[in-house]
């Protein structure tokens, strides 16, 4: 019974002389192969040579500090609830007196862990963050031999004070516009601390 019109009847017709000796087919195949010798080589000698990344490439995360070097993350859990891979866990602590230069808000992340094996680098955490604290960078997560070393804590995620990471290219026009608005606590906080110093 014929089911569709797309079926073909298999022919078993006799091969011609040219087909029988195989040589023409081999020569045309080899011509294709050797023609690649004269084409431009697509391989890049990584890590000496690096490909150019898009400015919004999604690699390893960074937990940003603000202009005064205080950690921006306030451990609100929005990234963890947005994370489709459930890769983020955190524990919050309360800022004590005298720690204002370390943490921006009265609550901070005492522990902040991202499981890089679970992470799918979708960038939803970055999108969910209300404090401009977490960003994805163009750094590729290092290869490791042990599974537990892929759980990145604050030691690996928080940016170093002397090695700040520029993320302005990743910020949407809406965010940049929002940062210009006066009167909002989010934008005021930097100014008040600047005055004190």
């Amino acid at each position, binding site marked *: 019974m014929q089911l569709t019109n797309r079926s073909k009847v298999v022919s078993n017709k006799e091969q011609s002389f040219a087909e029988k000796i195989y040589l023409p087919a081999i020569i045309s195949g080899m011509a294709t192969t050797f023609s690649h010798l004269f084409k431009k080589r697509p391989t890049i000698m990584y890590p000496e040579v690096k490909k150019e990344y898009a400015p919004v490439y999604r690699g390893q995360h960074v937990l940003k500090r603000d202009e005064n070097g205080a950690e921006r993350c*306030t*451990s*609100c*859990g*929005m990234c*963890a*609830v947005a994370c489709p891979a459930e890769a983020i866990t955190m524990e*919050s*602590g*309360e800022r004590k007196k005298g720690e204002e230069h370390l943490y921006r*808000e*009265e*609550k901070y992340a005492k522990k902040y862990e991202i499981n890089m094996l679970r992470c799918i680098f979708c960038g939803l955490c970055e999108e969910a963050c*209300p*404090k401009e604290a977490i960003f994805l960078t163009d750094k590729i997560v290092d290869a490791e031999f042990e599974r537990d070393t892929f759980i990145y804590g604050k030691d690996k995620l928080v940016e170093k004070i002397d090695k700040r990471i520029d993320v302005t290219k990743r910020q949407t026009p809406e965010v940049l516009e929002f940062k210009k608005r*006066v*009167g*909002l*606590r*989010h934008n005021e906080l930097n100014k008040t601390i600047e005055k004190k110093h």
Partner: protein
Amino acid sequence: MKVTIDGIEIDVPKGTTILQAARMIGAQVAPPAMCYYSKLKTSGGYCRTCIVKVTKGSAQNPNPMPKPVASCRTEVMDGMEVQNFTSPEVLEARKGVVEFLLINHPLDCPVCDQAGECKLQDLGYENGSAKTRYEFKRREFEMIDIGDKIKLHMNRCILCYRCVKTAEQFTDERVHGVIHRGDMGEISTYIEKVIDNDFSGNVIDVCPVGALTDNTFRFKQRVWFTKPVDAHRNCPTCSGRVRVWLKGEEVVRVTARKDEWDEIMDTPDGKSGFICNSCRYDHKQKSDWVIEGPTQVNRHSVISQNHYNHLNELKVQVMKQQKALGFMPLDKKP
């Protein structure tokens, strides 16, 4: 008395307010309320979020009321017709009320422990605008320490008076009131007195915002990472029927059980559902409680995140929709 709210008619006894009548019909017509609390006498009338439009005063006097009225303080008349969500005027006015409530409210939901179960958050999402027009400095208070059990964040307070009424009506002595007026108003315990009554912890549950929060739960977990279960214990001072919030095997918080209006539920035999401080703070072991089962959380609430006990409800709804659209039910394939 017959009253019509948003086109739905209901028969209610004399002395019922519009808000109560609307709640009898159901959530589809009930106006939101921030200060009214049915379990507290003389509450309501402060926040104006429950305003409705009365298009027909009564059967005798069919004139409309000139302004939107606070439904929690207006009693129904026979033949009254009320518009709530069907009136664009009410929605516009309510948007203004929300804007006023948010003028001095700090935008610190990422820090606040109430986030996720905050009525002001819900109200803002449902009725407010996404941006603020207010450009002046917000009202700020010095932190007042009112003891190790309750944390007072005066900045977040919207002056609903619920906690004051609770202190008046459910605890023996009133050590808790509002001082100053208007914009300067603040709840205070007069010279920073510690509230040490057996039922003082209930002010946490009645607070619609994060002004009064559980200090023992402070910054422990965000509510949507915890799992609420209904539990009870044999308590000599209160009903002992509570909601226990679990994180794994750990009891992170104990609260009273709340109904769909975010009010503390009465027990089935009609007793008050307000719980004592001993239940709230001193029994933080899972073995202290007899667990009845997971709390039914509205599936639109963030607390239902990753809790799958509403799946049955969802299935029923999907099947209803399929039936309405004329689909073959999933489990009755030929």
